Structure formats: C-alpha cells, structure tokens
C-alpha cells in the first residue's frame, strides 16, 4: 500500500508531525469517522474497499492541486481500508499553513475532492448481520469538468 491508503488505524499525531513546519501558524485537522446515527440502520462497522492504484494516484493529484492553490500549505492524509468500527476514523486530513484561513480552506478542499473523486467504496456491516453497499448519490458521480451539465456543487456531500 502507498503513502495514503492504510489498513492500520490512523496515527493522527504522526500526520500532524508530518505536516508541521516552523513557518506554519495554523493547522487544521479533519477526521471522518464511521457513523451510526438516526439516518443509519444499526451500523456496527464499515468495510472500505478501493481501486487501490487509482485511489493513491487520485489522492496524489488532490494533494498536488491543494498545494498549488495554497502554495504555503503542507498536507498529510491517510484513508483507511478494510474493517473500520463505528466511532473510528476512516480518514484523517491535516493541513498546515502560514495562516489559519489557508489551513481551513485547504483542509476543506481536500475532503470535498475526496468525497467527489476518490474510488473508494463502503459496505455497511449492520448489527443484525446484514451487509449493504453505500450509494451516496443513487447515481454515478462525475469527475471534474465533465460536460454532462452537473457541477461539483450539484453533487451530494456526505460527511
């Protein structure tokens, strides 16, 4: 597995250390965690799978895009694959930048692009033993700039 995907629990401290730099005055950490809320039906865990090679390449492109947009930003990221229990982080994004606004913006950009582009899928493992693929949209999402009339803002966002 490459730089960004991992089957092990995410070490957030290590990611923060990886993004840290003396010229960064603001660091924003986003954790996406497996949820079992009122919208779910008794979720015990999520099994994450990916098109591994493409997901690594896509994450490299997303992080590269963010570094271009916010040149002072330093970004560290891990996405988990395999079995992730309710409450555990499935993704951690750390964005450090000279000033807080850039750190918040870069961090937000990365998670939104992950939601839109990353070839990762989740199967809910429910407490009753059933397993269900999660379809966040009910339709295929589209990569950037595809001329079918939809814009990124039309796509669903699931945190």
């Amino acid at each position, binding site marked *: 597995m490459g730089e960004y995907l991992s089957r092990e629990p995410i070490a957030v401290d290590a990611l923060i250390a990886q993004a840290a730099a003396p010229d960064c005055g603001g660091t924003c950490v986003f954790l*996406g965690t497996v949820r079992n809320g009122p919208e779910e039906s008794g979720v015990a865990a999520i099994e*994450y*799978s*990916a*098109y591994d*090679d*493409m*997901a690594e*390449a*896509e994450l490299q492109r997303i992080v590269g895009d963010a570094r271009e947009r916010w040149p002072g930003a330093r970004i560290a990221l891990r*996405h988990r694959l395999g079995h992730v229990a309710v409450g555990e982080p*499935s*993704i951690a994004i750390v964005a450090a930048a000279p000033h807080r606004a850039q750190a918040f913006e870069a961090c937000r950009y990365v*998670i939104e692009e*992950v*939601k*839109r*582009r*990353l*070839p*990762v*899928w*989740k*199967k809910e493992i429910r407490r009753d033993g059933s397993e269900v*693929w*999660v*379809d*966040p*949209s*009910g*339709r*295929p*999402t*589209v*990569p*950037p700039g*595809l*001329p079918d009339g939809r814009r990124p803002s039309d796509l669903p966002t*699931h*945190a």
Partner: protein
Amino acid sequence: MTVRFFARYAELVGREEAAVLLSLPATVADVVRRVREELPGARQLPERPLAAVNLKHVKLDAGVRDGDEVAFLPPVAGG
C-alpha cells in the same frame, strides 16, 4: 484491454477483471457495450457508469487503446 470491476459492480458481474477484445478505434462507451453484451451479470451495470482509463477518471467518449486498463466504478463513497 483489461476491464476491472469494483465493489458492487464486481459482485453483479461475478468477477473483478475481464479481458476484452475490440476493433480500434474504440471508446469507453464501446467497452461498456461489449462488456454488457458478453459477460453474464454485466447487463445489470448502468449503461453510463463512471469510468476510468489507466487510473484516471474519463468521459465515456474517451478513446481506448490496446493495453489500456479500463475500470467501471460504482458511485464513489470515500472519506
């Protein structure tokens, strides 16, 4: 070329990979059509799935070449 299926699509088709022969020039849409015709279970795939060629998202009218890795992707759900 190699066609790869993931997640729910792999379950529908009953496999994760297939070799497809097409006369060129051809597009990703041609690959979708061929796969839906030839592979049992693949008719349940959407006619216009999200697709990738050589690890990049593409439109269905993108061209394909010998040796390409074409992938059909269910709606993505990362994060």
